[in-house]
């Protein structure tokens, strides 16, 4: 029985940031991440009639995105393979003279920490999904983008007192949501 339904008109507002952070940690390239997310939404639109409603909208979009990421690495590895063949030709087929051997290792010292931070980011975005759109936007502008109180008040036509009430409620809700995993 279908429990969930799709609301494609809300996809960008609801999931673009979440999917973006999900992708960045996996492809480590902003432009590629943007392209993969655009492709994911397009693919979602095309195949929305196949949605059975058994998983949530976000889970379904992530399943499509995972497929896109796998395809991206498939293409990338195929290009890399061609480069290796060229190396063999120019170097006279010296054994073990592969392209990878010539490239210095990337600095992976903090890779685990970076991955954990990205997982934390996804947890925060997930918890922000529980806030109203307005509260989430105000919290984001104030806490993540570090915008001035006055600028946010002007944008939303609210008083500083209103803003602090919204911030307080958002912070309390996020702290409750993150309590189990990260506090």
């Amino acid at each position, binding site marked *: 029985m279908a429990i969930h339904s799709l609301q*494609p*008109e809300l*996809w*960008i*507002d609801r999931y*673009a*940031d979440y*999917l*973006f*952070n999900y992708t*960045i940690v996996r492809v480590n390239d*902003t432009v590629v991440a*943007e392209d993969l*997310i*655009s492709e994911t*939404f*397009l693919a979602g*639109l095309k195949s929305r009639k196949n949605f059975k409603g058994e998983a949530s909208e976000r889970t379904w979009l992530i399943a499509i995105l995972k497929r896109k990421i796998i395809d991206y690495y498939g293409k990338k590895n195929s290009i890399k393979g061609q480069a290796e063949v060229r190396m063999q030709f120019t170097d006279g087929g010296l054994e073990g003279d592969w392209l990878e051997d010539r490239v210095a290792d990337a600095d992976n010292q903090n890779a685990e920490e970076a991955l954990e*931070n*990205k997982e*934390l*980011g996804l947890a*925060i*975005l997930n918890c922000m999904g529980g806030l109203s759109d307005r509260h989430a936007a105000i919290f*984001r502008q*104030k*806490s*993540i983008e570090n915008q001035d*109180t006055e600028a946010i008040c002007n944008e939303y036509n609210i008083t500083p007192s209103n803003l*602090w009430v919204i*911030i*307080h409620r958002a*912070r309390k809700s*996020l*702290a409750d949501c*993150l*309590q189990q995993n*990260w*506090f």
Partner: protein
Amino acid sequence: MILFNCKKASHICDKAQYAEAKPWEKRMMKLHHLMCKLCREHAIRNTRLTHLVKQANLTFFPTEKKKALKKMVNEQLSKNP
């Protein structure tokens, strides 16, 4: 007002997370925390949240591209409702 009540202490605690609390407000808040365990614990949790949000180093999908994507999605939806 000599001492803050819990509501005021909580408000100053929020402002302090954004470096917008005045030094005297922070002193009064800390004085309140000496007497109020609940607010003290709330402040620890609130500060931890600030730390986690900074640590997460969140990135966002560019606003302009969001607009373009929304347009594309709406066009697709109007073609194939």
